[in-house]
Structures are given as structure tokens and as C-alpha cells.
């Protein structure tokens, strides 16, 4: 029987590392005792994901039926009653988009990067559809498209930073990066709005948001990451109770 040289405990032939200390177990000829090589446990599956997927599918199926019924009801209303076609078309576009958003929200696309891109694509279609209802494109190219591209880029950047960062403390990381994201977004948003309205860029409110949120983010990251021991000691000394 194999033993862990560190813990001194006997273990099964099938185990390569000691279950207690993970020390690699020296190999022993398995033919000497073939009965002991039998697995005591099945290769365990995780019931949680299976059950979660089952529940998610059931919920998504129910929501899909609801949305399909809503579209049918709206189309029936258009064909039977003399109501404003514009309002009904807006509703149909919104309801169909909601189905796509729910699809994405339920996480059916595994990769988060692709999910963000898909989110951007659905939003682009939605805004294009809404703007095009009266057969005239007014705000889609000038505002919506820019804002959507901007949001998608910022989300992709934040996700990239999250995956690359060594900062794993959620209480620091999430607020700090949210602050960075919102400050970048507000600055770029004001640029777009200003440029489209006046053909010139003059930052005002977004600058305040940018400075405040960036400062909070940098302070949070700085305190967590790189506060020198001397400073830590000084804070402790001053604030000790």
C-alpha cells in the first residue's frame, strides 16, 4: 500500500497526491494488490450546474412564450383595431429586444467578451429599429451608435482589466473599477453630446464626475496596493484608539 512520506497515512493506489498535504506519492507496483485500485467514489459531477441549467431553461421557455404571446397580441391589435401603428411598432420592437436581452442575461453565451459584443449588437438593432419606425433616421447615427460603441469599449476594457488584475478583493476591485468606468463614460458621453449639438467640445459636468470618481478609484487602489509600510504605520499611529 502506498504511504504519504510526510503525513504517514496510507492511501489508495489510485491517488497520486496525498489528500491531506498534496505531497506526490511515490509509485508502487499496482499489480501486487489489484483489489485496492477500485474506485471508492464515482467521478463526481456537480449537481448545482445541472439543476441551475434546468431551472434556467424552464424560466427562459416560460418567458419566451410570454413574449411570443405579447407580440401576437400586439399584432392582433394592429389588424383589428384602428390604433396608432407607430406606438404598436415601438412596443413590438421593444418586446422582441427584451427577449434577446433576457437570452443574454441568462448567460447562454459562455464568453463574457462575446456577451458584451452581443449586448452592443442587440442595442444597436433596437435603437436603429426605434429610430427607423417613422422611416426617418434622426438620432441613430449621430448619437446612439457612438454611445453604444463607447459603452461596449468601456465594458470590454473593464472586463479585460478584471481578468488581468491581481487585485482580487471584490470590495476594492469592483467599486474602484466601476468608478473608472463611469468617469470615462461620462467624459466621452459629454464629448459626443457637445460635438453633435455645438460641433465643439467643452467639458463641464463630466469633468467634475471624472475628477471625483477617478480620485476615489485611485485612492482605493492605492490604499490597497501600494501604501508604503511607513505610511501604514503613520496611519495606525495617528488613528489608534
Amino acid at each position, binding site marked *: 500500500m502506498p504511504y504519504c512520506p510526510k503525513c504517514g497515512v496510507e492511501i*489508495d493506489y489510485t491517488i497520486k497526491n496525498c489528500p491531506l498535504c498534496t505531497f506526490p506519492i511515490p509509485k508502487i507496483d499496482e499489480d501486487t494488490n489489484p483489489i485496492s485500485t477500485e474506485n471508492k467514489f*464515482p467521478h463526481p459531477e456537480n449537481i448545482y450546474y445541472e439543476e441551475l441549467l434546468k431551472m434556467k431553461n424552464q424560466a427562459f421557455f416560460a418567458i419566451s412564450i410570454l413574449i411570443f404571446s405579447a407580440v401576437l397580441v400586439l399584432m392582433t391589435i394592429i389588424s383589428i383595431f384602428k390604433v396608432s401603428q407607430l406606438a404598436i411598432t415601438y412596443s413590438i420592437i421593444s418586446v422582441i429586444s427584451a427577449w434577446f436581452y433576457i437570452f443574454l442575461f441568462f448567460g447562454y453565451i459562455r464568453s463574457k467578451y462575446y456577451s458584451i459584443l452581443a449586448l452592443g449588437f442587440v442595442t444597436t438593432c433596437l435603437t436603429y429599429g426605434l429610430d427607423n419606425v417613422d422611416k426617418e433616421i434622426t438620432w441613430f447615427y449621430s448619437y446612439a451608435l457612438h454611445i453604444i460603441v463607447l459603452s461596449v469599449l468601456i465594458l470590454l476594457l473593464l472586463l479585460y482589466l478584471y481578468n488581468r488584475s491581481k487585485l482580487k478583493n471584490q470590495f476594492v476591485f469592483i467599486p474602484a473599477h466601476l468608478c473608472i468606468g463611469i468617469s470615462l463614460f461620462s467624459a466621452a458621453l459629454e464629448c459626443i453630446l457637445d460635438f453633435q449639438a455645438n460641433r465643439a467640445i467643452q467639458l463641464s459636468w463630466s469633468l467634475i464626475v471624472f475628477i471625483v470618481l477617478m480620485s476615489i478609484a485611485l485612492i482605493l487602489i492605492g490604499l490597497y496596493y501600494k501604501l508604503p509600510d511607513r505610511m501604514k504605520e503613520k496611519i495606525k499611529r495617528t488613528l489608534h484608539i
Partner: protein
Amino acid sequence: MRQHSKNWYKLDNAGKLYPSITSTRVSTVFRVSATLYDEVNPTLLQTALNNIIERFPYYKVNLKRGLFWYYFEYTGNCPVIEKETFYPCMFMYYKRKKSFPFRVLYYNKKISIEISHSITDGTGVVIFLKSLLLEYFRLLNNNLCLEKDHGIFFSHDPIDQEETEDAFHKYYQKHIPDPPKLKKAFHFPFKLNAKGEYNIITGIIPIEPLLAAAKKHHVSLTQYLLALYFDTIQEYIHSNKVKLRHPVVMNVPVNLRNLYPSKTMRNFFISITPQIDFRLGTYSFDEILDYIKCYMKMSITRKNISRYIHKNVKNEKSLFVRLIPLFIKNLLLPVLYNKYAERNFTSSISNLGQITMPKSIENKIERFEFYPPPSRGNIIKLGVVSYKDKIYISFGSLTKTTEIEKIFFRKIRRMNIPVKIETNRE
């Protein structure tokens, strides 16, 4: 039989809590399993279960929702055995229609019963498993000579009405004081596993040398293991320089059938809570043992235990509690359970004791094992059971870290007692 007159029954005092606090992590499901020397025959096992479940009508039930409480409704359906595929003690959707509050699993040579604590405790499930095994072996060999006793029910035995009683209510005394309240306990600072994962490490140890060591100190085996566990936690705290803000409190369930003359097959246990505050300094092993010995002697008396029964039943009997609708209870109870129970324990150690089987089938069974229910508050728990000349100590853990298990089993190895380790870890 009871179900002819009334087709439902109330959950017992301890069981009432569990359906409300069940979640994907806190499954409240524990497992007792038996490993045979031969491969399990699933067809025979299913037949044995169909036969024996009639002897346990109080387990042949589905959980239903009332307006104020859950209740069990007898069912004509039979539970179906399943091949083991998932991690042990996983949550079960027994609130769903036609779902039983237990499952019978098989894998190679192992037969396991996983059961929700809402219906019974360790003693109940051990009797159920032993009876199932007996029926299985009887089907396997018709000429088997089976002697009575060993706490086994035969499929043709008459059902005693006392088996279905809520013993908490029977032994409730109204005018006695509550036990002292507990405060927050030390918790292991380990990272939780992903949902749906539960790690088991079982140490298989010859019982004789451990018993001899316990006898040398004039303590029982449970007390000795409890002391070892406290000492393990102390060593972990000191070697890892863990900042201690609370005492280490252990949850030790006591089988009340040994104190009260009850034959109930439903829950009948109370948890006592020995605690040591390691902030006071380093305790020697003998000091820990002395404390546990005295604590157990003082705690496990009918007078002391009756205070715990009083507190639990009093809360259940309160008109205010009874009038709260079930959906609000389901929202409140997990929070209250965490505040008044889980948060106040560091871990738990539960010993089912020595399991015996009739001589004719004793040698067909290699071992019994007991896995404690996973819990978010007490991420490491200990389940102990002995069979023949071995003791099976199983750590059920919701974390990848094996520091506690390592220290515990190394301590036993240092006593020059051989330990064999088995695990479901990858």
C-alpha cells in the same frame, strides 16, 4: 396502519426548521453508507427497498406546504434507487411533487442513504439502512438465518405507534428555565468551494488503540476525538497565527434515546456546545480532555437536556410563531438559524457509535460510513461511525483547504496508530 386513518403528519420539533433553511449549499442532507464485499445488485436492492419501505411508512412520504407549516403526506409511490453520480449530501428537491425526503444510492459495492434532517436523525437512518441491508441479503440468500435485535426491523414486523411520536413534545416540560445563550464562535477563514461541491476525507483507523488511549484517560471515544479536534484547531490557530476574536465552540449532537425511553424513528437529538477560548493561552491535551470530560458529565443529564427541549418546543408552541405564514417563515428562518445556531458554532462532531449487524451478514459488509450535512456556517464537520474493528472518521468540507484534516490525522499517526485515508477529492 396509521396512514389509513390520517394521511399526513406534522414535522417534528427539530425537523420543522430544516425545509425552511435548505439551500444549494446548506442541503441539510446527510449520508450513511455501507460498503459490501460484493458488487451491489441494483434489481435486488430496488426489491429490498420496496419491501422494507412498507415497514417504515413514516418515511414513505412527500413534503407538502401548509399555510403555516410544512407537513409530510403519505404516498403510495415507492422510492427509486439511483446510481451515485454527484457529490455526496447534495441538496434534494424534496419540496417538489412526488419527491421523497431521502434517496437510496448505489455505486460498485456501496449502498448509501442520503436523507434530509427534516425527517429523521442519524439513529433513525442507521436503523433504516440496517433493515434495508438485511432485506437485501435475505433476498440474495433465502436460507439466511437471521437473529433479532441489533436494532433492525424486519419487513413483516408490526409497526409500533411510538416510532412516529414527536418525542420532543412528549418530554417537554413547561415551567423550566431556558439554557444560557451562546455567543458568536470562531470560524475557519477558508475560501468556500463552488456551489454543488462537497469534499470528503475519511480516515480509517483501527478502533482498539484509539479506545485504549481513551480508556487510559478515563474518557469515552467521542470525548477523546472531541479533545483531539479541539487540539487540532488550537494547533492550526497557533501555527498559522490566526487572529482569534471568539472562542472555539463545538456542536455535539446527543442522541436523546439514551436518556429518555423513546422508540421514535424521527428526530430526537439535542446539540450541546463545549467551548474553549484559546485567547486565554495554550491548553495542554490533558487540560482539554479534563474540560470535555467535566463538561459532558454536567451537560448530558436529563435535567440539563430538558432545558434545551423546553426552549425548542416553547418557540414552536408560541402562538405568534405559529401564526406567521410559511412564506414569511421561509424568509426569516435562514437568517435566524444563522444568528442563533450556525454562527455560534465553529464546527460539529457527530458520532453514530458502533454499528452491529447479525452474525450471518456481518462478514458480508466491509464498513459503514457517515458523512455530515454540508453547511455554509460550519464549513468543516466531522462524522464518526465504527463497525467491527475499525472506526471511520469522515471530514465533510466545503473548502479545498485540508489543513484541519492534515493536523488531525497526523496527530493520530503520531500516536503510532495506522490511518488509511480515502477521499472524493480530485
